């Protein structure tokens, strides 16, 4: 069946428009002819409002989303996004306030930011928080630039190596490279922890610090975290905490008390601001007192009269983006923390970890666990099904789509062959978990008995497996009537 939804441009017809704008109520001023655009915007489409709404509603139905189903995407924390948060962020004093309006006209927004700084610091055990970074990767960049500034400030310029575990997220090494540093990979040991001997061998007077995710990307709590931090500090390095997995340890442990010097919070994971199909996120950062002067600004403080104001820390690495961070995301995160309180946050992590372990024990007889330990909020299994021939993790992932589930994260971490990383989150019901477990067990049977079902999957999705090589070799990156017609013609033959 052809389920093609026309491209927007194919719905366009000259003369249409979909916005009801004010009429001109002032005298016209002549336009500077030489500065006008020459093409008359002939290439730009024209549609009416009903057409636009139907188009974007129809294509929205070709998406999987948390609202439509279970999304056990490891490392991404796809939990429920509360509706209250959407109302909160759209209150006029938040949604239509100008970022440069005077502080006296912004006290509510500044108070909210100040309180969120305090809450995040309390939850993570850090002295100071900056809400500037727009996403986790930018938080990492803030951290590594802060480490650099700290070492330079202490006249210690020879530190140029950032230690990154072999299981780390790709953003970690990419971030270190953006700060001009060399990446030194540290091995993991048989229990999924940082290999202490390898760490010792790689620490040196050149060490800037270490970037570590804890729980790590195997979904395991670093058993030697205190020792790792001690060793890094002894070598004069600093500990960066990648907060991607913070959903496991709210009220369970504070990174600042485990030996981390700096961390980012993915407000779009742990604090459930929506992922938005790829953003916006928020990568707020927290740190120890020693690093506070270097934080990106502006931050918010209270002056002696009790009024809130923005300020740039004295030795700040600078501004990472315009204005004050992704403020709309901050409103949502603030609302979440105030909805749950301390006990509610701890319950989030307890149930997130309970759900992940439940999935783990119910599946590990068929899908070997990468490291056989109690996991945190996610578990890493292997798509290596006994007795199955020629079935890969990718096939399992695609077959899950036919059962109505979003696939887990696959082939990550890189150190686990055929990895399947399952993160159920705390907001899923047991009924959903059981249905997912049953589907996974059924797929394991199919892998042995009818592997073609896996190789052909998905068959119950808006489209089936794609020719990704073609997309890259013959790139069509904007609407091109000829290219579209060619592909459509090939299909009808």
């Amino acid at each position, binding site marked *: 069946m052809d389920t093609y939804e026309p491209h927007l441009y194919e719905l366009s017809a000259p003369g249409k428009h979909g916005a009801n704008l004010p009429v001109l109520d002032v005298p016209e*001023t002549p336009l500077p002819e030489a500065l006008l655009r*020459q093409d008359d915007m002939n290439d730009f489409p024209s549609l009416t409002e009903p057409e636009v709404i139907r188009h974007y509603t129809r294509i929205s139905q070709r998406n999987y989303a948390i609202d439509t189903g279970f999304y056990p995407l490891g490392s991404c924390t796809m939990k429920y996004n509360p509706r209250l948060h959407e109302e909160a962020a759209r209150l006029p004093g938040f949604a239509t306030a*100008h970022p440069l309006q005077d502080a006296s006209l912004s006290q509510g927004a500044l108070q909210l930011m100040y309180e969120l700084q305090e809450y995040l610091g309390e939850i993570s055990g850090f002295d100071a928080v900056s809400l500037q970074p727009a*996403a986790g990767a930018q938080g990492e960049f803030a951290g590594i630039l802060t480490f650099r500034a700290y070492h330079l400030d202490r006249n210690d310029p020879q530190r140029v190596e950032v230690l990154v575990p072999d299981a780390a997220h790709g953003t970690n090494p990419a971030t270190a490279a953006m700060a001009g540093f060399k990446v030194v990979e540290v091995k993991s040991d048989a229990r999924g922890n940082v290999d202490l001997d390898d760490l010792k061998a790689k620490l040196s007077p050149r060490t800037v610090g270490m970037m570590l995710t804890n729980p790590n990307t195997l979904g395991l709590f670093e058993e030697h975290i205190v020792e790792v931090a001690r060793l890094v500090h002894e070598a004069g390095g600093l500990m960066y905490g990648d907060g991607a997995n913070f959903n496991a340890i709210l009220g*369970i442990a504070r990174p600042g008390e485990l030996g981390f010097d700096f961390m980012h919070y993915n407000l779009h994971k742990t604090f459930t601001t929506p992922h938005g199909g790829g953003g916006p996120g928020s990568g707020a950062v927290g740190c120890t007192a020693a690093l506070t002067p270097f934080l*990106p600004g502006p931050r918010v403080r209270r002056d002696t009269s009790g009024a809130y104001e923005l300020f740039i820390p004295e030795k700040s690495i600078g501004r990472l983006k315009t204005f004050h961070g992704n403020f709309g995301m901050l409103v949502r995160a603030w609302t979440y923390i105030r909805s749950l*309180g301390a006990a509610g946050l701890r319950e989030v992590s307890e149930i997130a970890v309970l759900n992940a372990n439940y999935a783990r024990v119910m599946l590990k007889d068929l899908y070997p666990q990468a490291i056989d330990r109690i996991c945190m909020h996610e578990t890493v299994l292997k798509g290596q099904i006994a007795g199955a021939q020629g079935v890969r993790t990718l096939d399992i992932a695609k077959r899950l789509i036919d059962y109505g589930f979003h696939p887990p994260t696959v082939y990550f971490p890189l150190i686990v062959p055929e990895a399947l990383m399952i993160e159920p989150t705390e907001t899923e019901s047991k009924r959903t978990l059981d249905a997912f477990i049953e589907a996974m067990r059924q797929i394991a049977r199919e892998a042995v008995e009818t592997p073609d079902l896996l190789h052909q999957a998905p068959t119950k999705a808006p489209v089936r497996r794609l020719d990704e090589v*073609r997309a890259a070799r013959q790139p069509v990156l*904007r609407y091109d009537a000829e290219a579209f017609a060619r592909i459509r013609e090939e299909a009808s033959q």
Partner: protein
Amino acid sequence: MSHYISITEAERAAMLAAIGVNSLEDLFADVPEERRFPRLDLPAPLSEPELMRELRALSDMNASTHGHSIFLGAGAYNHFVPAAVDQILRRGEYYTAYTPYQPEISQGTLQAIFEYQSLICSLTGMEIANASHYDGGTAIAEAAIMALNVVRNRRKIVVARGVNPQYRAVLRTYLQALDVRITGDETPDATIEDALSLVDAQTALLIVQNPDFLGRLHDLRGLAAQVQARGALLCVHFDPIALGLFQTPGEVGADIATAEGQSLGIGLNYGGPYLGIFTTRQKYVHKIAGRIVGVTRDVDGRLAYVLTLRAREQDIRRERATSNICTNQGLMALAATVYMSLLGRQGMRQVAELCYHRAHYAAAQIAALPGYSVESGPFFKEFVVRCPRPVAEINAALRERRIVGGYDLSQDEPHLGHAMLLAVTEMNSKAEIDRLVAALREV
């Protein structure tokens, strides 16, 4: 038990038994005991009605377009956001989805991003657009990093003084750890020609903004050729609303064009989330940062959309990636897509005309006030007003009248004296402008 958690007490017990532990606490035995279960000092939880009351109280403490006339711009603008935009953004299918890494069940997001790329190319006259950056400032920083990779062995970036000072600050933050010299913006009143004169055999990129930070329109024809003749690239930072009328970066031959996309259907949001627009030439597609959507077909031959050219990205290339960017501003790109679809060719032009004519009306009225003058030369929707008194004093008096005045230039451009950067958009009616002018006469 929180209302967001769906596991009952009885189910918890059954699940713990299946796992083989006695209690939830037992799941955390790997956490060092003396650091386990800290007491968090947070406010007591609130119910939804209590929380909404508190949120409204905070919201009401801020000025906003609902209660104030806003004439402030300087990088964030009070433009019209059609109701239909937010109705689409509120669809859970979009905002509760992840990055479209599983294309078979993400065709909605992928098609919307592809349409965004198409619309941005049509708007700008550029060849390709990526799926977004965090904001206009980081789009410029990524442009600089790309230029350093495209134009090998050159370590100088020239940035014109007319580029928004916050963008210049972001650029310096991003490049601080690399051995790169950023110059061209040190001298007050330095022109684009002054910046061009600094483009030499060491220069990878010239960055200009049009309209510039002070709202002035420049004729950029011929600039690209001069920059390219010196082996460097040209980045033009533009205002997407201005392109309804004025020269496009594509027409003037820019190698890279960036913008703050907030004007395209995204509210002021006290500074974010916004949208970083990034466009360039097809030949640099392997050098750009961020995500990009392409077209292909599925095994049955059906046309479908997919994230493509992924070998540039951090999750694949790690330390050799073009950038560390992962999460971007996807939902904001959707907002811009719906906005541009609604406005269409006619609406884009109409908004630009409303901004232009109303801004010029306001400028003429203000210039006629005793003690006030307006800088000469072509401008779009923003202009510099020279004032008889410190801008802070004038703005304080305007606040009494529920008017948010212009941007005080005394910090960024002190050589201009008492000068304010005033923004007028299609949202500022003639009546509102007349009220501003009357207020300025009084204060």
